[in-house]
């Protein structure tokens, strides 16, 4: 008993509409209800009462980029696991060993990254 595509996805569309309505409604209501008094201090970025120096458009650690790149690599791997897992009973041991080979390639990369110290966020040795 699998419903047709419009029947399966219409409720999703409905839920998206309702969620947008709730989020938007709340934002608009609070915008209309709250009174606004502005002054220079209130308009400056909050930095614990100290006068801000510069803005937040500076540079930050390259580690965050590395994590993002690694995530793309390994998440693609995990995404491949999903369909494989769903039909796994039909594939049997053949499917297992194919995936083992694939995982070995991915994991070799993972240990390379590990040994290169990409996953270490604190300096080694103390």
């Amino acid at each position, binding site marked *: 008993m699998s419903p047709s595509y419009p029947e399966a996805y219409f409720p999703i569309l409905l839920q998206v509409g309702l969620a947008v309505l709730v989020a938007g409604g709340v934002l608009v209501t609070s915008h209309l209800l709250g009174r606004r008094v502005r002054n220079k201090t209130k308009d400056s*970025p*909050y930095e614990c009462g100290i006068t801000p120096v510069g803005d937040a458009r500076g540079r930050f650690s390259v580690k965050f980029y590395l994590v993002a790149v690694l995530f793309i690599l390994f998440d693609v791997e995990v995404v491949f696991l*999903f369909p494989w897992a769903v039909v796994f009973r039909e594939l049997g041991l053949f499917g297992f060993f194919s995936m083992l080979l694939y995982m070995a390639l991915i994991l070799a990369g993972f240990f390379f990254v590990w040994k290169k110290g990409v996953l270490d966020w604190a300096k080694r040795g103390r």
Partner: protein
Amino acid sequence: MTFALSFYTLAVVKALVLLGILLITLVYIQWVERKLIAHIQGRWGPNRVGPHGLLQPIADSLKLLTKEDLTPPHVHKLIFVMAPFLAVSLALISIAVIPFGGEVEVFGVRTTLQLTDLNIGLLFIFAVTSLGVYGIALGGWASNNKYSLFGALRSSAQMLSYELSLSLGVVGVLLLSGSLSLRRIVDSQAGYYFGFLPRWNVFHGPLPQLVGFLVYLTAAFAETNRVPFDLPEAETELVAGFHTEYSSMKFALFFMAEYANMITVACLATVLFFGGWHAPLPESWGIQYAPLVVGALVAGLLLYHSQGAFAGKQRRSMQVFGVVAALIGAAFLLQPVRVLFSPLFWFAAKSGFFLFLYIWVRGTLPRFRYDQLMGFGWKVLFPVGVANVLVTALMVALFG
């Protein structure tokens, strides 16, 4: 009494009921959390607005709605407003595919207790929840505040890292169930081993998914930015993290999103690992009377403790709640009520337990350091998740 409801009318009714329940839960889980944390720390918690502070969430909502809605001039206006909007609407969408119970008949209308059963339900949830990181990352960046930026960066890196483990944790379940449809995953967990051990995926042969569950649970705590993984809003070092510059309802929407995600993740844990709405024992053991016993116990406790309550108002409200609990329990004596609400009772009990676990952990554990957090996610959780997938696959191939 039979209505000829069209499919679309039914979908609208179900969506509205679901949204109503979700919003009420969202509002009241914060009351539960404040009360529980207070009692863990030996305080009373909110107890001024209404009996036992039960009207406190409503007072809070009204206050937040009427507070000054400040958009500072140094922010990127469009993204600053879009971020909380995105976070909360995405968090509310993912609940649509969660199955809360089997097929039921209400007023002559047959329907499933689920908004829609997608054949890729699990994938849909992961797709929507992983988009949630945009709300936080964009909000922190658009704020143009150093603390917000650091909070957002940390949060993005953390959520990306733990999403891997979250997905790996459920692959074992997919191997056992062989479907991405959440309803079919629950159906595959029906029945009992040896006449008493439920065939939930945490006990399911050929390899119980206990490790997978622990990986999922840990990653889920990190995904929802909860203690001990609440680095993005580590108030001791980052003021309030990514929502430092937010005020009024925009600020509250981030919390709404966080709690909605918590609820989704708790429901998903119930569906994937703990058999959804299936009872923990077969009916021959009399488990269908459990709601009755729970109702009676709650009623007894409330009535007993009302004797020791320090104020007349507290005593009266505790007595009223006790009687209500007894009546709800007694309603389960009726056959139609039992058929309709028993699955919901078990689903709510299991998901409620996971929500309680969130709060319990928050009241117990300290926060990780950032290098520990990233190290744990990549060097422990990820390899354990991979190993679990491979071992489960081997077991399924050999004995499945």
